[in-house]
């Protein structure tokens, strides 16, 4: 066994490019990730997020580009020398080893003493709350327990960066919710950089400090969960994260743009002459009288009661707008209403 390389600090990725045959999977990804950040790569399947992760882990090679951890050239090392560990999508727990031995695997590959192995594995089983399962075999574990074993097995090595490849996709919704909290807690306690890959926007928003939305091998938007959700910059981001009403518009160099719903005032000057506006369903206000700005008349169509809110489909102009209102606001089908689109919430997309 060779030595695992030392490296610490921020992860700097520069121009990472990868293609499989004819197909370009990554188009020159560049990004910096600060030490201790919880970053999520969010995108649909085939957007290149998993390939990016596998390149960092060492299971794929990049065609071009570099990845540095502090001063350490990560891509020059074979996977078993990188100070990086992975939580695999299907957990990849060794079926012939007990929970304890699975967690101890990385330490046993090195030169740790038996005492140290026992101590560190014990601590990690405690952190991930599976100390009672230590002697069990993987076949006797539930999905959620396996997930914890996979997490413990990677974290026990105290990697500089932990890579998580869709770690919750095999779990049911309820369990997933609990584990998201857990993941956040563990990341805070371990203080390690987490890079998580997922196609689940709720998961991304819930756990991460920062979200990188990926599409077709490029980063579409990079920002905090709030920014990416509240201020999507592109059509793709607006539609991939949550739901957005998209409105085609024509601009003539002023803050007033023309749409099928009439003239609307926006908060920022569009860079295009013909493009798209977006507004989140929960940002649209329903009024009985015409508001001062950005009022659009409409007729209430289908209504769905969702428990904590009403979801309305409102016919305005030639468009059906989705609107979310408080559960105590009752509207009848066919009712005439005014929709107010607050200037700050009406977003000008870049395409």
């Amino acid at each position: 066994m060779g030595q695992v390389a030392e490296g610490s600090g921020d992860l700097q990725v520069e121009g990472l490019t990868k293609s499989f045959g004819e197909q370009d999977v990554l188009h020159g990804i560049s990004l910096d990730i600060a030490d201790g950040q919880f970053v999520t790569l969010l995108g649909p399947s085939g957007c290149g997020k998993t390939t990016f992760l596998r390149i960092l882990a060492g299971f794929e090679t990049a065609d071009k580009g570099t990845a540095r951890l502090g001063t350490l050239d990560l891509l020059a090392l074979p996977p078993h020398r990188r100070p990086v560990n992975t939580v695999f999508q299907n957990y990849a727990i060794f079926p012939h080893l007990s929970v304890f031995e699975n967690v101890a695997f990385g330490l046993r590959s090195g030169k740790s003493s038996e005492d140290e192995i026992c101590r560190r594995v014990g601590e990690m089983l405690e952190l991930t709350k599976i100390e009672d399962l230590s002697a069990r075999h993987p076949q006797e574990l539930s999905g959620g327990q396996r997930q914890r074993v996979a997490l413990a097995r990677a974290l026990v090595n105290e990697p500089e960066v932990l890579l998580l490849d869709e770690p919750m996709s095999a779990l049911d919704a309820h369990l997933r919710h609990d584990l998201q909290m857990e993941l956040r807690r563990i990341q805070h306690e371990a203080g390690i950089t987490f890079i998580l890959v997922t196609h689940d926007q709720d998961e991304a928003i819930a756990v991460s400090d920062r979200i990188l939305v990926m599409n077709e091998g490029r980063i579409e938007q990079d920002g905090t969960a709030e920014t990416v959700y509240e201020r999507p910059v592109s059509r793709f981001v607006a539609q991939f994260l949550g739901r957005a009403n998209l409105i085609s518009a024509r601009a003539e160099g002023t803050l007033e743009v023309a749409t099928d719903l009439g003239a609307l005032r926006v908060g920022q000057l569009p860079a295009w002459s013909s493009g798209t506006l977006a507004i989140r369903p929960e940002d649209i206000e329903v009024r009985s009288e015409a508001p001062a700005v950005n009022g659009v008349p409409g007729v209430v169509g289908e209504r769905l009661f969702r428990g904590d809110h009403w979801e309305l489909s409102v016919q305005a102009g030639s468009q059906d707008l989705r609107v979310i209102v408080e559960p105590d606001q009752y509207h009848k089908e066919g009712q005439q209403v005014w929709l107010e689109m607050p200037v700050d919430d009406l977003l000008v997309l870049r395409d």
Partner: protein
Amino acid sequence: MAGKLLEIHEGKATTRGKMVRAGLFLSVPALGWLGAFLALPCAALAVLAFARRGAYGSVDWAFSFDNFRRFVGFGLFGWSSDNLLILLRSAGFAALTTALCLGIGLPMAFWIADRPKRSRLVLLALVSAPSCINLVIRTYAWMLLLGSQSPPLRLLRALGMVGPDASLYPGALAVQLGMVSCMLPFAVLPLYASTERLNWSLVEAARDLYAGSLRTFRHGILPQILPGLVASLVMTAVPSLGMFVVSDLLGGARVMLIGNLVQQQFGMASDWPFGAMAGLVLVLGSLISLAVLSRWGSRIAGGQA
């Protein structure tokens, strides 16, 4: 009866007795098969092995240990190591055949599993194709290929690289070659069944957890291919131990294996009881190697880090 089976299938069997009865019923074909084709012949062999050869090749049913004494070497002219050497030689040939078959078969199984789906089927067909030809004919083909008049040897002779009498046939090397070529498909096919559905993420996990090549193989690959490995060990080792056609044809009279001894006693020598003793030893040898192999297999399967 069909109704009863259905109940068990859906987990509704109410009493233990019902389950046991159904289990016994279902095992009748297997037990019947084993009884008729394994237990009975073995029992017959065991009885025959302790009888005596009568006049003109008949069997004299008097119990004696003579055959055993003779097998371990005590003959009319004092002790001789002939039979034990035959046994040892058979074990050696079988071990080497098994090792070579696995040594060639394992990389081959990995390589085939790595091909695109369509080529995999073609390659598997190619691996098993020689088995479609009768073993005797295949072995004669080896005689031609390895004999002194074979084109490769003629070429080498013309180039002056080998002497005028050089030939691989008949001899131990020819026997070894023939045995490996005969057993290879039986080694490759069970291995392929394991390599084809190998979960590579376990290999990646081992790499990710700092394991070097050996440790990655030990924990990422070996436990997954172990069933295939044990199956191909058994499928190769046991038949090679009893092999006689190949050694007979390719060995000339020089390579006598236990299979040949059995064949000779039951055939030319008309000494069935002694042949039975040799056969009994062969069966015991096979059983022992089976037991050793399966224990070894389960020890690795339940292994520690």
